[in-house]
């Protein structure tokens, strides 16, 4: 088994919502636990998928492990080195090793710079190559992401979505990273282009030995590219395991709902009958994101949980003292549910 490249232990990230002078001076303000005690690890050359609804904290995890934002507590170990408290200056050389592909196609593409200059800047951040080396590397990068030479002279606004994504990937590859956090890399693209990008990312992994933390809400794609998948709900990992197990034998009711909602859309008869006569659906205004008025009591999924309803609302689910913890159910599959 290959070595561990990234290990995250009990990671927490609180956002403090401060508005105006008063709360600023008193230091008060709401604390939003975007990530609430998350642990996982990545092995070299593997892909871990991170799935969940918007607002569940999956993007925050990506930003925190790369130290683009500071963790509130917890430990991030990259390649055997604790990077949780490194200063900005100490982090800079590490930036070559770990990179991020952002959801926004325009990320990193300065609207006032041509593609050539964008790539040149990325190539010269950490080293001082000669002009000839730069030219050679630019050509290599274009080849790696299959982009035409003629695009070098373009501004980002003149590129299509797929081309922007390719330039963004080339820019990241320029520093020769080992770990890439890919935050919804395909969600802003057309279906036919999405497939191109997914293939490209897998190709790059094969040829360059990359490790991916693949954040997405597109379940089939996550299942396709990942060896392991972690499912997040309200800042916590509720289930984690091998991709095929998560997809086909989910143990946590939330994972089940996620996958079922995908099948639902496609499958006409089954769900129509299943849903017919269902009571008026309860949809909370702050559906899926942290709700301040409703403090977490026990399992945070309980208010939406079908199992909780089926089991006749067992007290253990809403007991503040017993929030379910992740536990191993075999084959490295972990679930945070009292009834898994």
């Amino acid at each position, binding site marked *: 088994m290959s070595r561990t490249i990234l290990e995250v232990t009990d990671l927490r990230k609180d956002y403090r919502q*401060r508005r*105006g*002078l008063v709360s*600023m001076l008193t230091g008060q303000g709401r604390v939003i636990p975007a990530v609430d005690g998350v642990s996982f690890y990545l092995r070299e050359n593997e892909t871990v998928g991170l799935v969940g609804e918007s607002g569940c904290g999956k993007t925050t995890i990506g*930003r925190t492990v*790369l130290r*683009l934002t500071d963790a509130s507590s917890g430990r991030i170990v990259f390649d055997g080195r604790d990077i949780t408290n490194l200063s*900005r200056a100490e982090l*800079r*050389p590490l*930036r*070559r090793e770990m*990179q*991020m592909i*952002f*959801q*926004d196609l*325009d*990320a*990193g*593409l*300065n*609207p*006032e*710079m041509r593609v050539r200059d964008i790539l040149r*800047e*990325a190539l010269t*951040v*950490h080293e001082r190559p000669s002009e000839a080396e730069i030219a050679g590397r630019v050509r290599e990068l274009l080849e790696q992401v299959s982009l035409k030479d003629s695009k070098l002279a*373009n*501004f980002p*606004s*003149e590129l299509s979505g797929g081309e922007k994504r390719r330039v963004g990937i080339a*820019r*990241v590859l320029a*520093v020769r990273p080992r770990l890439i956090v890919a935050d919804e890399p395909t969600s802003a693209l057309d279906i036919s282009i999405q497939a191109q990008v997914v293939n490209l990312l897998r190709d790059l992994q094969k040829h360059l030995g990359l490790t991916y933390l693949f954040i997405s809400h597109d379940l089939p794609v996550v299942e396709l590219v990942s060896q392991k998948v972690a499912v997040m709900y309200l800042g916590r990992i509720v289930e984690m395991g091998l991709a095929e197990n998560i997809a086909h034998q989910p143990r946590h009711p939330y994972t089940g709902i996620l996958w079922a909602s995908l099948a639902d859309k496609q499958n006409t008869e089954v769900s129509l009958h299943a849903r017919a006569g269902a009571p008026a659906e309860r949809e909370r205004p702050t559906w899926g994101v942290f709700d301040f008025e409703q403090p977490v009591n026990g399992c945070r999924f309980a208010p939406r949980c079908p199992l909780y309803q089926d089991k006749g609302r067992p007290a253990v689910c809403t007991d503040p003292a017993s929030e379910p913890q992740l536990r191993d159910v075999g084959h490295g599959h972990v679930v945070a549910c009292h009834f898994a």
Partner: protein
Amino acid sequence: MRRYVQTPGPIGQFSELSLRQRAGPLDLVYVAYGLLVVAVVVASYLLGAFGWLPHDPQAMDIGLINAAPFTSGHPLGTDFLGRDLQARLILGIQAYFLPGLLAITISVVGGSVLGILAGYRGGWFDTIITYFDNLLDSFPRLVLILLVIAAFKADIYYVMVVVGITGMPVIANLIAGKIAFLRQKSFIEAAHALGLPAHTVILKHILWLNCRALLVIQATLGMAEAILVETSLSYLGFGVQEPTPSWGNMVQAGANYFLQGNFWPSTAPALAILATILGFQLLGDGLNNLLEGKRRK
């Protein structure tokens, strides 16, 4: 009826289109006129600074007072003391040119610093700078200037410091807005993730590449403000004093004769003010439409 035409031949890339094709037709007229005004003002300033004037601006020709334009030897006529208006108008630029540059330098530099603190650092800075902006906006500029004049002295450079400082919030807000836009596009974060040092991100990516157009535009508009303030003050008698000419005191001095029907001595400087302020404003707005407008879509 409005006509839309497809460009003949192959359709080019956006960048290959000429400026003329990108702009609304009026914007180019605005900018052309503005550039003309800037050129005339700068040239006139230099003429005045080196004393290369068509006439002695103080020489009184008692035989030729309130002469109409195109009178022999005085292409723009003379004032109520028979002084050559053309020479006095050219010399009048001395009153606002350097002070105006001081004011826009203060507002551009100060505004940039505040804008970056508010937009890039955010948090505390953002809140404090917002309050600072609101505080400055509370004073009518002219009243604040009169307060400074009363407390200190009627010095145009004191006044321009006030103009410069009160011009900072607008620029700070625009820059903070630009940074917020770039941040929303994950641009700044991506630059950090790549490992670019903060000063490169701020100076190169934010200020130079993304804010230069905005700063030029604001400097242009700031000059219009400075001219307005200087002429207003010298009209009120707090600026340059007679017999040294300034456009404001020329209007004021000519005003008495104005009511008797002698328009020209006070209208000539008024038109100069009008044409110049209009020029700087149109240049600013035209540039804004040309350079910034294209990013909107």
